[in-house]
């Protein structure tokens, strides 16, 4: 049972992890992240990289939708912009990986600011539907400027190179993708220790009050779009290096829906929610594949897998919204409370 965690200074109170046990758990997490690649097989490494990329993107979307309250269905467009930027730079100029990722983030960020401009006049679900337009326009751009983007055939991305090492396997990519994701997570968490994060939440909860308190709405909404799409752009760039092939069809509307679902299932407006949501949404289809593989369906197993995945995807969204609207983060919090208060009940 956890008994009073009194702090002795304001700085201690504001720290990200506040007790010795929490730091211990962080240590365990870091150790496992470091050890994981050496004990996991190719498939698990593949999944780990995919999960990390999805966490990065979900965190970005959570910033915009969960914390600032601006619903966006354009995440796939920003990821696509990041991916194409990275691919083009890598193919044409062979510039360093980290530089490319940064450029991808910046390009996506600029697009995000443009998409965010209407957000002052257009509110709520109208804004959400408007962001679908971002995806449509991005798809058009990717298919039509064929000299740059390879048209509908897309681009084949050569592997990244860092310090002379060619990153052509999940094992090698892991060591770049995971630290980048961790940095992005820490950055996002830091935002909410400062006035920037507080302003985002204020805009979500009651934007009129926020204005009266001196928060210029348009500037901060654009900032939220900017940061969130930067994250999406970097995630998209990692996507390009990871899958090594991108086409205009790689970033469909359903991908934006996937990330929005990850935000909701994980828990809107919580850092833990971004992580849990991304992990859950990425792993469930894989678990499904295993289950379908076990069932005695023989040949038709593969045929059944895709529609079943689609059904389960929709079902998860619906079930979480009806029964656990605060998402997995809330479930986690309940479990933690159980442990903290044991042997008392919550």
């Amino acid at each position: 049972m956890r008994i009073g965690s009194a702090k002795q200074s304001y700085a201690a109170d504001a720290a990200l992890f506040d007790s010795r046990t929490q730091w211990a758990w962080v240590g365990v997490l870091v150790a496992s992240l470091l050890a994981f690649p050496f004990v996991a097989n190719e498939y698990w490494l593949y999944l780990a990289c995919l999960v990390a990329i999805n966490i990065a993107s979900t965190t970005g979307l959570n910033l915009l939708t969960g914390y600032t309250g601006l619903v966006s269905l354009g995440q796939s467009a920003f990821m696509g912009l990041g991916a194409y930027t990275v691919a083009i730079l890598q193919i044409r100029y062979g510039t360093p990986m980290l530089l490319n990722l940064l450029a991808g983030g910046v390009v996506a960020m600029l697009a995000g600011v443009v998409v965010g401009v209407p957000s002052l006049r257009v509110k709520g679900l109208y804004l959400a539907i408007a962001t679908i337009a971002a995806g449509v326009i991005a798809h058009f751009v990717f298919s039509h400027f064929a000299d740059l983007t390879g048209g509908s055939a897309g681009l084949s991305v050569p592997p990244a190179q860092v310090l002379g090492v060619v990153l052509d396997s999940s094992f090698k990519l892991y060591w770049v993708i995971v630290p980048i994701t961790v940095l992005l997570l820490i950055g996002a968490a830091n935002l909410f220790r400062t006035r920037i994060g507080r302003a985002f939440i204020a805009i979500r909860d009651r934007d009129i009050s926020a204005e009266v308190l001196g928060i210029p709405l348009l500037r901060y909404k654009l900032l939220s779009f900017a940061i969130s799409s930067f994250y999406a752009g970097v995630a998209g760039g990692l996507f390009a290096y990871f899958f090594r092939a991108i086409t205009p069809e790689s970033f469909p509307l359903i991908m934006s829906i996937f990330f929005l679902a990850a935000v909701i299932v994980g828990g809107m407006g919580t850092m833990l929610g971004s992580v849990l949501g991304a992990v859950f949404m990425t792993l469930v289809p894989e678990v499904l594949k295993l289950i379908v593989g076990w069932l005695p369906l023989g040949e038709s197993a593969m045929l059944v897998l895709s529609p079943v995945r689609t059904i389960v995807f929709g079902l998860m969204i619906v079930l979480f919204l009806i029964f656990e609207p605060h998402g997995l983060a809330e479930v986690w919090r309940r479990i933690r409370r159980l442990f903290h208060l044991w042997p008392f009940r919550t």
Partner: protein
Amino acid sequence: MDWWLLFEIGLAGIGSGGLYALTGLAFVMIYKATRVVNLAIGEMLMFSAYMLLAFTTGMGLPIWLAIPGALLVSAVFGMLVERTLIRPMLGESPISSFMVTVGLSSILVGLVELVWTADQQRLPEFLPTDAIRLGDAFISPKVFYGFWIAVLLIAAVLLLFRFWRGGVALRATASDQAAAYSMGINVPRVFSMAWMAAAVIAGVAGIVVGSIGGLSSVMGAFGLSVLVVVIFGGLDSVLGALVGGLIVGLVEALSGFYLGGEYKILATFSLLVLILMVRPYGLFGTHEIERL
């Protein structure tokens, strides 16, 4: 300038516009009654078309039985969706009910793919097949008849709204739930009715769209254009759905022909961006004023 060609394309646009308007009407009905943005409207349309397929090709029923059967199933389906998915979301944020419909659309697509696979299917022909000619312009007969079916149904619904008690109840609930309750209107029943009616209307649209272009599990993309229609016209405006439907139909037909097929969706969404810049609540939508 080939005026007859332009006229012909215009007619095709109006024809599809009629179907957009019809589906838009279903959407607006749901929005007005329950304040839900139903992203699954395209999939509901698809569901009805597949029901018809099941009744005709699957069970071998004659068309005059199969169509009412499919519509009946659609009505029941609409009511079920309202009871199980929408009712629990009452009082939650609009984004929640919106995402529930997104989940629903996924479930429907998956179900259709499971039972009928993702391949294209064809409905039996039940509309007259002689080409229609207006001067030098030809219209596909299915589009022609489809348009008039849409027009008749829209007219019937509008009359019902105006003169039938249920229609008045719907309008009352749409403008003020609490007041409607206190007037003795059974608000939950109005919700169910709205969803049932909308499902049937979308069902008719689905059957027509299905007979024009065939069925597939991606038919629901029709709903994306309908979304533009209702944003353009105003989420809660019936007139907006009608006007918006025709305009979007025309824009799509013209841009599809003169610019190329891949420009269709771009043109539609450019229209969306335009209306959001100029009139964020749509042509005829009501502006929600926040009280301070």
